[in-house]
């Protein structure tokens, strides 16, 4: 039974009076445009497609150069790009895709949200069209764009972690810098000691900064490295598992860094980078994106080391980034597919070609080009970072948990992380999260 919505009903009637509209209301649960047969055409159609993403249009690392390059390669396809802030992307998609008008044709998808979007019918199944083309892409990112064996999105970017440090402060404290050699990876416990020492003896204001404090992406490697898993298990990853002993242990450790004032409370992810660049911080653990910004802006020589490992555990680093998906109601699927293929797959990927410094491409050839660029070759820190990224991506990268309930999971676990950093007992915070996520996931069982 479908509810009658009065205002929309009136609108539909008005539409029917003029043209007999085929997109009738109230037909309920159609299986959308998924079954229709189409393929990526050999010849470019003439079309205008709309694209929604969180990336800026202009300015540093804006989309403008990408769109220009695409237009040059495919002059008959016009791309209209709109930036939506990440915070609002979900709301905007919920509104625009469910109105079934096919606008936007293509949209940015956070890789861990693929499962949720696919379950909601926001994404067209791309398996038939793109399934054979994914060999050009880094496998972990392709896996992150799959759900229940089907391909729902094309990965554009990827990410890895570097433990940046301020060599002058470390030297002053007499602390050995973290190694870039996988055989000599330091432990989290060692890092905490070193960071404290850099603060006490090296004159650092902050011992260490998490690049994205309280974010699941940033913290997932800690319990994973301790053998506690990434937060959910079981069928379709719908059994919450965030209060096992390893989670409690590693999160206690996380909380203690703030308690001992090694890391400052209440600094948001947006503020950490500029704070490290200001030069009063010993260690800074963040994505490789910051290689470029630190190289450009920091007034000190910086160094890069490997992500620490939990004592007695296995190394893990976070990974994953953005992809692009196709609206199942798009009326320009062919043109949209050409754009998506150009952006993600062709050559080094249009994305990697035109925005070489801003994001690490998911495209294999694109990564090579990315790691050969100036920020990764021009300094000792950059060279170390390139080596680290290459190694971590191939050996320790662990994608975030793939579950249809990812958004609820991420929101609620991050509430717990935030509480822990503010002084709540880790066990209590994680028990609460376990219970809240379980209850939020009831609808998926």
């Amino acid at each position: 039974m479908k509810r009658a919505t009065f205002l929309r009903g009136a609108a539909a009637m008005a539409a029917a009076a003029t043209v007999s509209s085929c997109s009738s209301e109230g037909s309920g649960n159609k299986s959308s445009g998924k079954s229709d047969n189409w393929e990526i055409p050999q010849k470019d159609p003439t079309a205008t497609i709309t694209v929604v993403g969180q990336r800026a249009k202009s300015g540093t690392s804006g989309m403008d150069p990408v769109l220009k390059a695409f237009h040059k390669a495919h002059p008959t396809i016009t791309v209209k790009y709109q930036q939506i802030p990440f915070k609002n992307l979900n709301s905007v998609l919920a509104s625009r895709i469910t109105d079934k008008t096919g606008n936007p044709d293509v949209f940015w998808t956070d890789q861990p949200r693929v499962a949720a979007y696919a379950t909601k019918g926001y994404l067209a199944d791309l398996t038939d069209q793109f399934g054979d083309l994914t060999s050009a892409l880094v496998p972990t990112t392709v896996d992150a764009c799959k759900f229940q064996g089907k391909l729902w999105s094309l990965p554009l970017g990827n990410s890895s972690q570097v433990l940046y440090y301020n060599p002058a402060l470390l030297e002053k404290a007499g602390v050995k810098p973290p190694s870039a050699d996988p055989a000599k990876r330091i432990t989290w416990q060692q890092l905490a000691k070193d960071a404290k020492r850099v603060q006490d003896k090296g004159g650092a204001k902050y011992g260490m900064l998490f690049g994205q404090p309280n974010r699941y992406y940033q913290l997932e490697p800690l319990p994973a490295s301790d053998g506690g898993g990434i937060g959910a298990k079981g069928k379709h990853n719908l059994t919450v598992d965030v209060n096992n002993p390893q989670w409690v242990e590693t999160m206690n450790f996380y909380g203690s860094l703030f308690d001992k004032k090694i890391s400052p409370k209440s600094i948001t992810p947006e503020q950490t980078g500029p704070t490290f660049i200001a030069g009063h911080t010993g260690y800074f653990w963040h994505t490789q994106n910051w290689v470029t910004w630190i190289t450009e802006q920091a007034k000190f020589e910086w160094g890069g080391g490997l992500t620490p490992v939990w004592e007695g555990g296995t190394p893990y680093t976070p990974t994953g980034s953005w992809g692009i998906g196709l609206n199942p109601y798009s009326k320009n699927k062919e043109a949209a597919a050409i754009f998506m293929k150009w952006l993600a797959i062709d050559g080094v990927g249009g994305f990697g070609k035109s925005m070489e410094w801003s994001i690490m491409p998911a495209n294999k050839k694109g990564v090579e080009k990315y790691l050969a660029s100036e920020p990764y070759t021009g300094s000792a820190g950059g060279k170390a970072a390139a080596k680290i990224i290459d190694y971590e991506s191939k050996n320790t990268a662990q994608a975030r948990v793939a579950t249809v309930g990812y958004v609820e999971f991420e929101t609620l676990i991050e509430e717990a992380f935030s509480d822990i950093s503010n002084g709540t007992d880790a066990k209590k915070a994680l028990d609460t999260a376990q219970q809240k996520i379980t209850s939020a996931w009831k609808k998926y069982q």
Partner: protein
Amino acid sequence: MEKVPVKTNRAGEAAPGASPSKRTRGSRMARSQLRTAVIFLAPAVLAIALLRLLPFGEAVWDTLFKSEGFGVLAEEKFAGLENYVTLFTDVSFLQTLGRTVVFNLIINPLQIALAMAVSVLMTRKMFGRGLWRTAVFLPSTIPLVGSSVAWGIALRPDGPVNALLGLFGIGSQPFFTSSHQALASIILVASWIGIGHWMIFLIGGLNSVNQELYEAASIDGANGWRTFWSLTVPLMRRPLLFVLVADTVANFVLFVPMQMLTNGGPENSTTVLMFDVYQRTYTFSEPHIGAAATVVLTVIMIIIVSIQFRLLGERDK
């Protein structure tokens, strides 16, 4: 939908149809009055009915359904009052309800008292008055995204506000990082924004209070404090009612500062009802439960606003 009991001012209007001989004239007058009312009210009522009340009515209707499946693939099933049962058997929702009421019981009187004090000051004779009024008003014009970020930095445990407090020998405060201070800190930020906004309306009200009455009062030898309570406040009843109701509604639906600054934490201490509604509707994709929570929120507002109308409503004289 409940009605807000409203007492309107009947004083000063001639009572129509007082004697039988005037009845026909009275009814003709009533008809012409009705016509005027319809013509004058129709555009505004139509706009509000179509763009607010009707969609809200549908949202209320929505609360009686639940989804099977998700997003565009969802199918709606009639569920009766299930969504409300879910809400009211959820302990954390009940805590959120209580917190919302407490938050409003503090912030509304506080903001209005301070706005009133600033308004009284800003209606006195002084140099450059317009400039100072604009300065106090300025915070309400800055987009919340910007001012929330600024306050988030200012109130960091290692931030400038604590450094300033340190200069006066006051120890470092945790502000947003403590479940005991977070809500109070939100109140601080929201008041910094709200006071200037409501001041404008109170200045308007103060200006329309008869100055001769003040002169008479000062001749009688009443001091400023007594004049304020015995003269200003009663004469300000109408603008005060407006500001009280409008401020209450604004604070009940306030959630952006919580979203930007504390994300409802620490330990849910800043999770108010509207934040909860937003999270359920937009983040957790539970539109039906979100709508049910909205209905609860609206009912609470209606009750509180009704009380305010009763307390400050015009009485027939």
